[in-house]
């Protein structure tokens, strides 16, 4: 996929070039080159601490990087957080779902979802509420709209978080281990909602340990090892016939249990 230089290929919506990031002396991301096409679902796997979360957090500027360059939908991020207006633009166009949901506990479910469209996009309250209700219905929690996040189960909270991100009508969705904090019986409902989103053609970058899900929805799987892209390709290649040692070791560990 990343060798595909033909002009007929759609312009990438995300483009990382030689991105390097350090936490002090620790080299967290090493020369990351990555392009994601519109509509593509990219699943990023790797051991904890390999840099996979850091990678997607660089894309919406929650982490700064020190070298290289990132372009998201024509907006350019530069090293050391020098972006200004571009960063704001990117965050408006890129949604994110977090491992810990990060819903706003002081706001109702409906207000969680309608806040950003009103404050960032300048929608009227009526429009924002209407969209919020439609999205909550879509993720199957319209009957909980008046409740506060603390009154919902983890699975419900994560689906609200998904609706909240979608309310901004993002062009790209980032998922940072969206099911890792969930009880096992709630993982399915969140994956279902994500599966449906993928089917509708959303561009998605997903950090996850759910290999079955990766195999099913991913157009491309990227395996990150010690801050580098160690292997990438279609899921059946990377997950079933991994070529290099770290990938094989990682997969044998996660698939065993």
């Amino acid at each position, binding site marked *: 996929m990343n060798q595909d230089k033909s002009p007929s290929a759609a312009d990438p919506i995300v483009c990382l070039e030689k991105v390097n990031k350090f936490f002090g002396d620790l080299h967290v991301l090493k020369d990351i080159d990555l392009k994601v096409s519109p509509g593509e679902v990219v699943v990023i796997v790797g051991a904890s601490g390999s840099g996979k979360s850091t990678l997607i957090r660089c894309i*919406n*500027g*929650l982490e700064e990087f020190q070298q290289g360059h990132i372009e998201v939908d024509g907006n350019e991020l530069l090293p050391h957080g020098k972006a200004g207006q571009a960063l*704001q633009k990117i*965050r*408006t166009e*890129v*949604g*994110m779902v*977090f491992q*810990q949901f*990060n*819903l*706003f*506990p*002081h706001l*109702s479910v409906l207000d969680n979802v309608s*806040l*950003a469209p009103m*404050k*960032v996009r300048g929608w009227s309250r009526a429009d924002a509420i209407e969209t919020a209700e439609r999205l909550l219905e879509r993720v199957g929690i319209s009957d909980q709209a008046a*409740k*506060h*996040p*603390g*009154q919902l189960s983890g699975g419900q909270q994560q689906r609200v*978080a998904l609706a*909240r*991100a979608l309310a*901004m009508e993002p062009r790209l969705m980032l998922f940072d281990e969206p099911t890792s904090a969930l009880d096992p019986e709630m993982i399915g409902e969140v994956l279902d909602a994500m599966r449906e989103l993928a089917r509708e053609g959303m561009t998605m970058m997903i950090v996850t340990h759910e290999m079955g899900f990766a195999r099913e929805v991913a157009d491309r799987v990227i395996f990150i090892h010690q801050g580098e892209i160690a292997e990438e390709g279609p899921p059946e290649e990377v997950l079933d016939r991994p070529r290099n040692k770290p990938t094989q070791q990682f997969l044998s560990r996660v698939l065993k249990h």
Partner: protein
Amino acid sequence: MDVTFQFDWQAAFASIPFLLEGIPYTLLISFGGLAIGFLIGILFGLLRISPFAWLRIPAVAYIEIFRGTPVLVQVLFIFYGLPQLLGGPINALVAGIAAIAVNSGAYISEIVRGGVQSIERGQREAGLSLGLSRRQTFRYIIWPQALRRMIPALGNQGIISIKDTSLFSVIGVGELVRQGQVYIATTFNALEVYLMVALLYLAITLSLSFALRQLERRGLVGQ
């Protein structure tokens, strides 16, 4: 033991109307000072956690100075000291309010800092990731949550400051203690009158505790 002293209930009750005249001053100094102190606390509490040292250092200096010196010394300095600088007298009521303001402001700065810093990092990240500006994230996400967590500590500070105003009898403001002293000077019922003074303070602080508990209870819904 020769117990001849009788608690004179009549004298105690008789002092109440005179003591009540001090209550408006006590309340005005307390709540006027606290209101200004709250604004100071928000400002300096936020400066205190600024990423810029040139904003942080003055805030730290202010907090340490006004937290580390007695409020009695502060009010004496304002009432007797500052006029020498300014060349004119300062109204005792104004001096009292100012002393409570700068003193409680220092403590409230720390309460604000602690409240804001207690909000999980993920809240800020979620706000920013939705495209909210840093200012919007603070205003709609961080601050409302921080404020709720600050209520118990703010209540504490309110009660402390109300009691601190009792020291301001030294600058002659006709607040509760001052009224008591004046009354005792003519009737010599120290036991009865100071007991009444104490009960009136208790009435004020208990009302505040009660009001804050209601506020907290309402604030907790949905957390």
